[in-house]
């Protein structure tokens, strides 16, 4: 069988070789230079450029129509609205530039396709034009920079709220642990030397402030309308805490504490009633039913967003945003570090 394949392959090669020789012979006999572009080549490719432009723009619009309801829902955090507003403004600008500049490119590519009887114009440069297209982008960029930095400074400001909720997110391959400071509202000190089975985040057992710290896995809760200040640590390698619905992200770097803060403004329950979210969840559930899986409900997620190994894609934690009352009831039920460690 293998022999047959080899034979067929060899025969095919010989046949192709013959075919090419005929082609080359006729090419050389006619003496024309096939590589030279003819008017019909130019016409064809010029038209193809214009056609491509319409296809390309059509493709863009088709995607916006088909995919834009799948993008992240409205921001669940206060600063996220600032980001979304700025993002929309930027999109308007860059989409406009995308359309206009590409249109010029493809239009000229079609309009000035070459013909034998025409000659190009000898245009070397034009100071006025060049000034315009240096200054206009510069002014537009100035606006982008000014607004970008204004919001950046607001978002990155520390200690806005005198009495925020404090949470530490602790990353390791491949899960998250959330730590609350407990009744004293202070995190105890920690040391990676003290990590063991019953002390997964390395709390210093001699530090009194650690005793009432609360460690939770799989999901953590935050109250709506309260400022939450996160600090991030990592046990092993760089991870990144990504909370897309809250427009929040920060790397978790071993040997270093990083931080980010936001104020959640939409509870999980409210978000589940959002039209955008309902549409997406219905779509997801349709797919799941087809595959014979149980339907799901919307949840906020904390994802890992820095490559961290084999299960990077599955390193996540559920976030629940609820009323302060529900939050207090939930946190009261959680075990403190002391009760965990003494077990």
């Amino acid at each position: 069988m293998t022999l047959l394949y080899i034979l067929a392959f060899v025969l095919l090669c010989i046949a192709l070789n013959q075919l090419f020789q005929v082609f080359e012979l006729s090419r050389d006999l006619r003496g024309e230079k096939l590589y030279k572009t003819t008017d019909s080549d130019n016409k064809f490719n010029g038209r193809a450029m214009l056609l491509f432009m319409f296809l390309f723009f059509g493709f863009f619009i088709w995607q916006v129509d088909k995919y834009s309801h799948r993008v992240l829902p409205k921001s669940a955090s206060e600063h996220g609205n600032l980001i979304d507003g700025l993002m929309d403004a930027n999109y308007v600008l860059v989409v406009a530039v995308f359309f206009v500049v590409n249109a010029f490119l493809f239009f000229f590519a079609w309009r000035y396709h070459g013909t034998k009887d025409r000659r190009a114009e000898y245009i070397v440069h034009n100071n006025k034009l060049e000034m315009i297209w240096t200054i206009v982008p510069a002014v537009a960029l100035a606006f982008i920079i000014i607004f970008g930095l204004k919001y950046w400074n607001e978002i990155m400001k520390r200690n806005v709220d005198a009495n925020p909720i404090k949470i530490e997110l602790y990353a390791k391959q491949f899960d998250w642990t959330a730590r609350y400071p407990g009744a004293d509202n202070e995190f105890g000190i920690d040391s990676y030397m003290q990590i063991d089975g019953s002390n997964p985040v390395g709390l210093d057992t001699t530090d009194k402030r650690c005793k009432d710290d609360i460690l939770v896995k799989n999901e953590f809760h935050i109250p709506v309308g309260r400022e939450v200040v996160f600090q991030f640590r990592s046990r092993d390698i760089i991870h990144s805490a990504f909370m897309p619905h809250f427009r929040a992200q920060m790397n978790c770097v071993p040997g270093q504490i990083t931080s980010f803060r936001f104020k959640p403004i939409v509870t999980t329950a409210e978000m589940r009633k959002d039209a955008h979210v309902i549409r997406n969840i219905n779509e997801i559930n349709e797919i799941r039913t087809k595959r014979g899986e149980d339907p799901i409900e919307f949840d906020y997620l904390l994802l890992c967003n820095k490559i961290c190994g084999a299960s990077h894609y599955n390193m996540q934690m559920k976030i629940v945003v609820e009323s302060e009352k529900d939050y207090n009831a939930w946190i009261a039920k959680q075990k403190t570090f002391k009760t965990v460690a003494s077990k």
Partner: protein
Amino acid sequence: MEHTHAAAIEGHNLHDHAHAHDHGDHHETFVSKYVFSQDHKVISRQFLITAVIMAVIAMVMSIIFRLQLAWPGEKFAFIETLMGRKWGKDGILDPNAYLALVTIHGTIMVFFVLTGGLSGTFSNLLIPYQIGARDMASGFLNMLSYWFFFLSSTIMLGSLFIEDGPASSGWTIYPPLSALPEAIPGSKLGMTLWLMSMSLFVVSSLLGSLNYIVTIVNLRTKGMKMTRLPLTIWAFLITAILGVLSFPVLFSAVLLLIFDRSMGTSFYLSDIYIGGKPMEQVGGSPILFEHLFWFLGHPEVYIVLLPALGITSEIIATNSRKPIFGYRAMIGSMLAIGFLSFIVWGHHMFMTGMNPFLGSVFVFTTLLIAIPSAVKAFNYITTLWKGNIQYTPAMLFSIGLVSSFITGGVTGIILADSTLDITIHDTYFVVAHFHIVMGLSAIFGMFAGVYHWFPKMFLRMMNKKLGYLHFWMTFLGAYGVFFPMHFLGMSGVPRRYYTNSNFPLFDNLMDINQFVTMCAIFAALAQVVFLINFFYSMFRGEKPSENPWKSNTLEWTNPVAHIHGNWPGALPEVHRWPYDYSKPGHTEDFVPQTVPLAHDEHDGGEH
């Protein structure tokens, strides 16, 4: 062989024909002519063919991981055949193998194809040809540059065949992931080989770049003022300077990582508990690595992009039959881009916990790059305006580059803004952005260069019709691959995820992933068309005339042959800038650089 060097230097000032005849009686063995050759034309072909092989490997890798992303859990028998039972059991890709593929795909494409391949091929081919030199300043160093590149490529490919697999912590190899063999199998021997390979790559790049700079500065022929250089040469010069200044920093980053991995130092390590025990190494910072890496990494983007921009400047002017619009502005904007590229690296690190004020500075410098970039795009478009466009395959790819440079460039404005980066950092939005603006633009530039200068490299022509087919399939396929990724990113999908459907949040995005993968397969088929055309034409393509594109630059003034020393007689003398296309007062629509200026004629480059 050593007189290549002498002849080249001699040729600069003396235009004597004395040494013309001693090129003839030159005895070369097969090894000295084709293997350890010091001739820039041979070295350029060596770089190109190595790069083509590397590109095919990296492309096949991308198809494998795209299949996994589109149809996770589906069995593709050929994956087991290709990857072996350990990495592709039952035709399903292993998660570690996925990360390894992503890592090596990135490494090969960025360094071996678009840095080594692009600069290596075209700087070598075009610098002596276009400045009118007999060869590079040092043929010997040039030869070493290729063989270090070859060795580096061999080690990188060799790492694919070891037991624990190749490096797999992403092409940016951030420690501690890349430093700790306990964290990921790719950080065992695979990472050691990666670091060795890249160290050799840096050596290759430096030898090449220094040679390019020296050659351009010293060996220009009579009359070839800096303001008469083709934009290709300007681009190669600036690229080489960027390489010389930034690659050593990558080397130091790599060296410190080797120390951390093998000698117990802790430049990048601190407070780590892994493999069931705390590590002894304390006091380092992984962020230091990121600073060092991106100090190379960002200029690297322009090391990849500038040669492509230079190549297309030349091709667009030639085939529009018009001078490049704003020659001086083009040089100025390349210089500005080159300078700014050194002070923007922090925009890769907004989310590392870096001081937000420092972030602000990088926002400012990064967005400034948009200005020279915009100038370049507008100048290309204006060059087409009122032209008489000849659609060679090279011209198609050049226009493709301008389009991808615009389309990918505008999303850079969003990513450069630290505020907006919070939500899209490390998502597919980034993947879409850099593949379009850097990947597509640079590879389009490379294709354009191959089609345009194929007759100089192989003394044959590529088939035009297959070139058209290649371009249109690639152009359609490539946008089909990368455009929808913006929407994945806006939906919050992180990059480097083995599957997006392990938890339900992204389940409804599967059809986007499938669409992307189908486009990727389509675009890959287009490359088969290219490969057939490339290898077929190399041996059996048409014979070209001396100046097939009616171009002005010096490489088209010598006969269709590979002459040792490039020109049979004296070196050509240059009298004008290279962009006198369709100049009034001349019968032909091109005026080669060797044609003396008429009595009352102005040189176009003097503006």
